[in-house]
């Protein structure tokens, strides 16, 4: 086969994928950027207005509130979720793999298969102030009923509980795979040198788990920032707008209020935010372990 035929064939195999890369990603990204500079209504007017949408969005109470809620949710849910997952993964890693551990691991993974929509309904019922399980369980410990999702200050933490529950199994699997790939001889050597368990965790486990930690943290942050189903179903953004998220605002601005230009600006900010945050995570958490 000559070189040019070879190349031609390769591109023939690639053509469908490249077509969809263009249609599903490149064109929409460009289109979104375009819309963000327009006063855009789905039914009628489409008028170029420069950076007016950007100015409008940045100065609006609505954007600041949604961005604040989303960040608050992320800062609450991600660290708790990652630390809990790491503890559980370390626990599994300390056990010998048997039929029983496989079964227990399945328990942790089960919530992952539920859609976030279903998760929202599961917890909406659990957090029900009168008939829910949450207050029932608190009652056993002598704690009075809590308002949960119906209270301005408790709503975001309640959403974070739902999210951590739904995502934990996924993180545990990835971290556990990373832990099991660590060569046991490192620990033996450290033990001979007299290192304690904390020291071993800090100087062997964490550095060698780096790749999986970065992956888990990035995926979690991305998922948390695009929070939508949980508040959409469980709180409708309330009470008093305390759970309105960025993606919820995108939906409402475009599909309810017909203000597509402003919604497109929200998308741009969402992107910029994702890029900056995931870039930072890589910088902060990726350690050089070649030494």
């Amino acid at each position, binding site marked *: 086969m000559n070189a040019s035929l*070879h*190349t031609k*064939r*390769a591109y023939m*195999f*690639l053509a*469908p*994928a*490249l077509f*969809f890369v263009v249609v*599903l990603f490149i064109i*929409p990204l460009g*289109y*979104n950027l375009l*819309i963000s500079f327009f006063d855009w209504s789905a039914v009628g007017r489409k008028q170029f207005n420069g950076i007016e949408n950007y100015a409008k969005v940045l100065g609006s109470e609505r954007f600041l509130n949604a961005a604040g809620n989303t960040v608050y949710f992320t800062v609450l849910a991600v660290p708790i979720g990652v630390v809990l997952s790491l503890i*559980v993964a370390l*626990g599994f890693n*300390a*056990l010998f793999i048997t039929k*029983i*551990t496989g079964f*227990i*691991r*399945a*328990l*942790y*993974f*089960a*919530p992952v*298969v*539920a*859609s*976030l*929509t*279903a998760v929202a*309904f*599961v*917890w909406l*019922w659990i957090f029900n102030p*009168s*008939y*829910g399980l949450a207050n029932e369980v608190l009652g056993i410990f002598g704690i009075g009923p809590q308002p949960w999702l119906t209270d301005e200050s408790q709503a975001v933490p309640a959403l974070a509980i739902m999210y951590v529950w739904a995502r*934990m199994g996924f993180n545990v*699997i990835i971290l*556990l*795979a990373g832990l099991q*790939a660590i060569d046991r001889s490192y620990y033996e050597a450290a033990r001979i040198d007299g290192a304690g368990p904390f020291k071993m965790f800090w100087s062997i486990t964490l550095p060698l788990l780096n790749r999986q930690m970065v992956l888990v943290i990035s995926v979690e942050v*991305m998922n948390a920032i*695009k929070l*939508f*189903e949980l508040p*959409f*179903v469980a709180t409708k953004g309330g009470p008093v707008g305390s759970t309105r998220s960025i*993606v919820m605002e*995108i939906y409402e601005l475009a*599909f309810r209020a017909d203000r597509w230009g402003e*919604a*497109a600006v929200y*998308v741009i900010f969402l992107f910029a935010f994702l*890029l900056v945050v995931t870039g930072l995570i890589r910088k902060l958490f990726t350690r050089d372990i070649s030494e």
Partner: protein
Amino acid sequence: MIQTALILGGLALLVPLAWVALSSLKRPDEILQLPVKWLPDNFFNFNNYVQLFSQYDFGRYIGNSFLVTGIGILTSLVIALLAAYAFAYYQFPFKEPIFLLVLALFMVPQEALVIPMFLMVSGAGLNNTYIGMAFPDLFTVLGVYLLRQFMEGIPYSYVEAARVDGASEFRILTRVITPMVAPAIVVFIIIKFMFTWNTFLWPMLVAQDEKMYTVTVGLVNFAGSEFNQWNLINAATMISMIPTIILFITLQRYLVRGVAMSGMK
């Protein structure tokens, strides 16, 4: 000790699902009894489920979800196989830059593209069609990545031998390579099934006719109109989860391996 702690933790995580399952078997008056009853009077009271399938359209929603998910799996699998074959067995200009571009798209969440994508799909008159509903799922970056990884583990000599025998490239892909990457295909199908089955925002936007609702959209719509009928809402939540739960129970090993695999390299 660790084992006991892990078992207790795992059971605690299962309580929310068990609570919904138990609640879905209660009668309307039973579910609103105080103090809260943990267990239903009758464990075989499936009236709520019967009602959702007979008086409401949940059978149809499930069918729609299967159809949309099936379309997404089929097209994205075929496209990924073709692309992965080119990446694994061909040398061509811009190969690695193109692959990196494809990989970078991992970072683009679907939610962030709903605005232009909705305008494109409705502009093409695909609202309320199955193709329109499956549109963002027709192609998945993960598939290309997983299959390429797996194909590169197969010795190149298999491809060369088939070429010497005069097999066409397409035949080599379908008859030689595809059977050999079957484990990766299974993993991909499971992950893709889970993702597509569970999406909500996009089908909600595109399916405007109730006849087209997927099960997630149907669930939210139903709960909105039958506000406070918690026995039915719990049963509907269960219905929406049953297919992925069955998938999970039967193919757990592959699912776990798939998640671990996509996180390893």
